[in-house]
Structure formats: C-alpha cells, structure tokens
C-alpha cells in the first residue's frame, strides 16, 4: 500500500501533497489566509473577473505566496472567451494553471461540455495546464482527455447547492475509465461527502460554498482537510467488501463442479 506521505497529486507534472482545492470568492478576503492554513490547502481558485484591473479589495493581495493559483474562466460563455480570460490571467501573473468554466445558463450555472472541450484544445495549444469543469459524461471526459486536459473536474451537484455527490455513479465511471486525476468540483456540502468522493477514487475535492456558508469557516476548512485525507487513505487502503444480499449460500452454488 502506498503510504499517505508518498502519495502526491500530480497535475500536469506539478505535485501537490494536499488534495483540497479551495474555491474563493464567497467569503471575506481577510479570511482567505486562515481558511487556507486551516485546510492545509495548496491550490486555490480565483475568478479572473474579480482579480482583473486593479481596483480596491483585489483578491490577489490576499493569497499567500505559497499557494498555487488556479484562475478560472468564469464569465466565459464560449471557448474563445475562455481563452481570452485565461490569457488575461497569465498576464496578471497567475501562472499556467487554468480551470475552464464555460457557462451559458445563469440559473443553474451548469457547464457546457461541448464548448469546454473546444477550449481545452485551444488552451493546450497555448501551453496552459488545463482543468475543465464539466458535467460528468464519459464521452465528453474522453474528448477532453484527448484534447489534452490535465485533470477532469466533474460536478457533484449544481454549484453552491451543498447537495453532495449526486453524480456519484457517473464520477465513479470517470474514475475507472479516465486516466487523469478526477477532481470533484461543486456541490460538495459536507466533509462526509468529500470523504465519500475520495473513497471512490476522486483525486481531489474542490469546495467553496460549504466552507463560506458555515458558521466557522476556519474550523470547517480544517474538517474538510481531515475528511479529504481520511477518504484518500481509505481509498488507498482498499475498503472492505460489503456482502450485498445478507449471507453466502450454505451449500455453494458452484459445488457441483467436477473438474476431475
């Protein structure tokens, strides 16, 4: 069994010990550092549209230097817009990572897989480390992988809903079939749900609203950090088998076989 200490998350050749990616933008900026420290977070997302163009209260000023920034393309409605936003992020000094977020629905904020796949291709050609936010659909995930994605970020439930891992079976299929880190993004509302996603093989969890809407974001960040680690360790340990229908038959069904 791989020990937790040697177990690193590899995204596009960059290694992370922490598997807790923090979403920012729903709590006070001066809480950011505390939440990051409490959760043992090494990567945090950042809405380029919020960091853009100076002004007061710039979120970039509140990110600890040790954090890897994951700028997202929120505000983009198609692939071209996503590329423009990603390039702006690079100009702002946010590094090479980009979370592709292409949304054409202001009500549920569900991602557009087809445009996202296009954007992955365009962004890879521009040497970004590309992490697409997507509806967990196997064909789309394969297309994104073929287009060069460095991780796949399926949603657990509609963003901000705190409803948990509603897409469990589909995320599991991605974990089994796609040879890239599968990072559950959006919808995770409680540490137990984060833990569950990690147990079924998610490579990391992204959370924001669950922490921002808790009464004590610093402690909740810590709880998430612990749950994600526990889930990971459980996954690596291989969870015990569950006997699904009560018991094993007392006289084996295959007892008649005579192989000579």
């Amino acid at each position: 069994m791989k020990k937790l200490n040697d177990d690193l998350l590899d995204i596009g050749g960059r290694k992370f010990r922490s598997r807790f990616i923090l979403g920012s933008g729903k709590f006070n900026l001066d809480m950011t550092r505390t939440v990051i420290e409490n959760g043992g977070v090494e990567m945090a997302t950042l809405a380029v549209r919020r960091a853009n163009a100076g002004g007061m209260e710039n979120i970039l000023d509140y990110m600890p230097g040790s954090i890897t920034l994951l700028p997202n393309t929120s505000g983009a409605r198609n692939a071209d817009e996503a590329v423009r936003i990603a390039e702006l992020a690079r100009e702002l000094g946010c590094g090479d990572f980009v979370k592709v977020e292409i949304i054409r629905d202001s009500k549920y904020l569900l991602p557009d897989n087809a445009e996202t796949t296009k954007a992955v291709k365009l962004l890879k050609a521009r040497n970004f480390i590309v992490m697409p936010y997507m509806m967990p659909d196997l064909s789309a995930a394969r297309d994104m992988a073929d287009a060069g994605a460095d991780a796949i970020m399926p949603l657990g439930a509609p963003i901000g809903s705190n409803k948990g891992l509603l897409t469990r079976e589909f995320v599991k299929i991605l974990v089994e079939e796609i040879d890239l880190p599968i990072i559950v993004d959006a919808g995770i509302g409680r540490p137990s749900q984060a833990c569950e996603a990690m147990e079924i093989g998610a490579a990391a969890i992204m959370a924001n609203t669950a922490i921002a809407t808790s009464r004590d974001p610093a402690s909740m960040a810590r709880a998430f950090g612990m749950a994600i680690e526990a889930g990971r360790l459980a996954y690596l340990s291989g969870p015990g088998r569950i006997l699904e229908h009560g018991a094993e038959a007392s006289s084996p069904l295959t007892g008649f076989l005579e192989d000579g």
Partner: protein
Amino acid sequence: MRDFTDAEDYEQGMEHIDPELMTRVLGRTSDYDPDDYSDRDVLDAISSENVSEDGFGALLSSAAEPFLEKIAIRAREETMKHFGNSVNIFTPLYASNYCTNRCVYCGFNSSNVIKRAKLVGDEIDREMKAISSTGLREILLLTGESRTHSDPGYIADLVSRASRYFSNIGLEVYPMNTDEYRKMHEMGADYVTVFQETYDTDVYRKVHPAGRKRIFSYRFNAQERALIGGMRGVGFAPLLGLSDFRKDSFACGLHAMEIQRKYPHAEISFSLPRFRPFINHEDAENSVTESKLLQVAMAYRLFMPFAGETISTRERPGFRDNIVKICATKMSAGVSVGIGEHSGSEKGDAQFDISDPRNLEEVMNALVANGRQPVFNDYIKV
C-alpha cells in the same frame, strides 16, 4: 388585458418584437390575486426547495406579511449559497436631465421647471475621473429620456469615455432598438436596466401621457432587444407604489423569469425603487413601507435565487446596511444625483433626493462591520 397591444401607437423607427412573451406575463398577472393566499400557502412557499410561480405569488401576498422573519432566514440562506457575502459596489453618473416624457410622478418630467443640463466633452471626463479616483470600477450611466439632447451618439460617447476609466459599464437610459444596443455593447456597455414603472397598462397610460415612453410594449421589450443586441445582463423593476405593488412585483418577477428562460445566459437583476419625495411632488403618496419593500426583495430572492438585487441610495443607511445581509447583492455608494456634482460643479438639478449621503469609505466600513465583503469588480469584458 390578455390581448393587450399598443403596436398601432408605435412611432416611426420603433422596432417590433413578437408580443407573445408580454402577453403571457400580462395574462398571468391579471389572474394573480394577492389577497387570495392563506398562511399555509406562504409557509409552503417558504419551505419549498424551488419556489414556484404560485409560491412567488404567495410570498408577495398580504398573507405573507406576518412571516417576514421566516422568509428572511430562508432568503439569507439562498443569498449566501449563490453570492456568499459579496456585495458589489457601483456608482451612477447622471449625465443629462433633459427629458421629453411627462411621467406625472417624476422630477425630470418635461413640464417641470428645473435646471436642465447635460455633461459635454471634458466635463464628462472630469466627472468620470473624479469617480474612478475613489477606486470604483463599475459605473451606471443615466440620462433623461430625450433622443434630441441625449441621442444615441451622445450615449455611445459616454460609454466610450467610461470604458477608459471603468471595467464595468451599465446603462439606464431610454429604451433603444436592437441595433442601437449592439452599438452600445460594442462601445463597452454590457448591462441594461429599464424600469417598467408599472405593469398595469391602464395606470401606465395614465401616468405616461406623452413622449415615447407612453408606449408600454416598446418599453416592455427593451430587455429582450438589449440581449439580442449582445448585452450580457438586464435589469428589471416597477416603481413600487405607482400601482398595486404586489401585482407589479409579481409581473416583474415573471417578466424576468420568462426572459431568462428564453435567453438562458442572460444575467438577471432586480432594482427596488419606491416612491420617495420628488421635486415638485413632495406630497406624492409613499405607500410602500420598508416592510413591504423588504417583502418584495425577499420574494424575488426566493423565486430567482441567482438574480442580483440592487439597493439604491434612495433608502436610508440602516435599511441598506441590513438588507445586504438578507437579499440585496449590489449597492451604489458615493452617489451624487445632480448633473456635474462629482467634480464639484453642479449644473443641473437632480431627479430626486437621496437618503444615504455617506461617502464610499463610510459605506465600505459599514459593510465590513456587518461581515460583508465589498466587491469593486466582478466582471470581465470578453
């Protein structure tokens, strides 16, 4: 009511849009009876996961009045889920107060004797510089409704100048045609707010006796034309108190909902204007109390949890500071309503008086003290 149309009144050059969406909104509004709800209807709406159209009606009804606290708890939850504790800050710039309409309730009414003026050339830059030097990144450009004194070319010039100083530009001007909105969008504007004032077509006719504004449906379809013209977001509001505020708010919610269904990418927002004392109309009836205003704001929040809500300086500081903890997501700050007032040389009168005279820093400090995060920019032009 169901077959309402005023298409024959259209002036030359006014663009027609299929009235089907409007007919549906007006039809369902005429069926809405705000006095026909029980406590149970209200409680069901509060506890339902997605508030239906009927639930929205219940939340706006008189039966909901005793349940404001319960509704507030639910509204706060939804606001947190969708917006966290962020509050967007912007300021309006009143560029011109010439107006050809005769809205009987308005200080800009063309028959009122007020000091008329508009900013021109360097005056515009001076005002914009003064505003942007405070750190604000979002501006809302306003003019009176005169296609002579503030013609589309003038507004396009305002937008183009604003794009040098601000990252987010909204328009609150007279309704335009699609191609004009497209032009404004190309110059840098991305949000359009048009207040319908009232959705009661009879009252609308009565209080808008002249000017292009008298044509209800041309105004009603403005948001749709703005979206077709490429705008990212559209804002809606009745002027609460002009007619039955419950029915008007109901219609406004349906209007916004139907637009979002037809244009799913559209960012939707509501404003919450109500009668305040106006120049020459100090005696105007102010029937919408703070409780009623909050009730409307919370009903919008539960019906369309993802929509923005703007609270203006027409409300007092104590109201504004608290409503952003429940459902409002955007507020103006550092507001001067007179023409040219930002740079200290007022040349035209204001449309109304404000009730929150605090400067930007004071507003920000109050937000932070209330656990809110002021956001100056949450937008990128792509």
